[in-house]
């Protein structure tokens, strides 16, 4: 393992399309549920415990055995009822693969895998371990939405980073849980869902005016 490689993979500046996605935050801001750092705190904790855990587990599983990519991909389909979120995840998976292929020898896992599967495959290609893939996944679920919050709500970036620092131990915990389960059969892997993210994503996809792709 290489810490510098992990930082590279988890860096928000990795050109993998993430900047155009709010992780479901934009519709919740529009619904008035997130207005300030406290609201963002609740949003991020819920997202981390649901989609974050699922992403981390699937990234860890794909990293542990890239040969499972196809069945993991089907497993994520079953965990992502919203067509808009499936599209967003696959678009980000494709973008991540594009970036990853330029960096490491990533094996063929399809053109548009779900984002966590792509992340796991990249991590494996980069010589990282499943728990590192899981940390990158959990970290990505919080930082992506947090940076969208700074842009959408004009929140104080220091206050937002203070929140991210408070969430860091939770990211580590989630990643450890996820990695410990990475060898489970796909049906038994975490499946925590977030109903408002699903509902919000479906409404958001129909908006005429929006800043983020999801």
């Amino acid at each position, binding site marked *: 393992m290489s810490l510098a490689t992990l930082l590279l993979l988890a860096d928000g*500046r990795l050109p993998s399309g993430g900047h155009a996605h709010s992780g479901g935050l934009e519709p919740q801001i529009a619904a008035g549920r997130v207005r300030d750092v406290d609201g963002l705190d609740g949003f991020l904790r819920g997202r981390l415990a649901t989609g974050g855990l699922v992403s981390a587990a699937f990234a860890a599983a794909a990293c542990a055995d890239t040969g499972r990519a196809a069945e993991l991909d089907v497993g994520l389909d079953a965990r992502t009822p919203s067509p808009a979120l499936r599209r967003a995840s696959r678009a980000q998976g*494709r973008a991540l693969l*594009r970036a990853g292929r330029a960096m490491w020898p990533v094996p063929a896992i399809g053109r548009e895998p779900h984002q966590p599967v792509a992340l796991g495959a990249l991590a494996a290609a980069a010589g990282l371990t499943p728990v590192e893939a899981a940390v990158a996944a959990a970290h990505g679920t919080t930082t992506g939405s947090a940076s*969208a919050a700074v842009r959408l709500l004009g929140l104080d970036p220091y206050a937002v980073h203070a929140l991210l620092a408070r969430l860091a131990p939770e990211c580590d915990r989630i990643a450890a849980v996820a990695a410990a389960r990475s060898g489970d059969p796909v049906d038994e892997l975490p499946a925590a869902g977030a109903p408002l993210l699903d509902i919000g994503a479906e409404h958001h996809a129909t908006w005429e005016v929006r800043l*983020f792709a999801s």
Partner: protein
Amino acid sequence: MHPELHEHGPDEVPHTHPDPGVDPHTPLAGGPRALRIGIGGPVGSGKTALVAALCRALGEEIRLAVVTNDIYTTEDADFLLRNGVLPAERIRAVETGCCPHTAIRDDISANLDAVEDLEEKLGPLDLVLVESGGDNLTATFSKGLIDQQIFVVDVSGGDKVPRKGGPGVTTADLLVINKTDLAPMVGADLSVMDRDAKARRHELPTVFLSLAEDKQATPVADWIRGLVAARV
């Protein structure tokens, strides 16, 4: 990347370009990919009007598609559709998450996906125009996304714009100074703009245009014809 489209300046760090098949732009089955031209410039300078004019001028003679990067709507794509300059399947809109310059410069993945999807769906193309979201004078396209870029400014901001410079004005492969019909109204002196543009841009070409009058953007269309011809 085609060497003829990419000059290496004397002060550039020595580098080589990988074969188009292995660089991040996925290779296309069956032949070279389309020429990609980025169209950038400040909000409202006439980028969409230029794209529409180019579709009118070139749509019949070359295989063409458009990617738009609106800041928060599909306005530009809708405009092109409404005006019937290009069929819907030849237009893609990309969302940019509040950062139009990021989507064309730092993280070009969504735009590359859109270009590839168009090429895959429509078959080989000669030209893809990528319109950036209206931004500021510093917004330029990544060379990983486009081969050539056009920067569109207009006269209504006053004749100081070329003097102010910025990467768009200074380095774009073609600078378009649009809305010359408005120059008398805003007291902009075109000869000052021309002089300043030359000073900033040295050999790089600049054209004056009024899209209100020239619905085919003739000088720009001719410039593109030359580029497309040079590729084959």
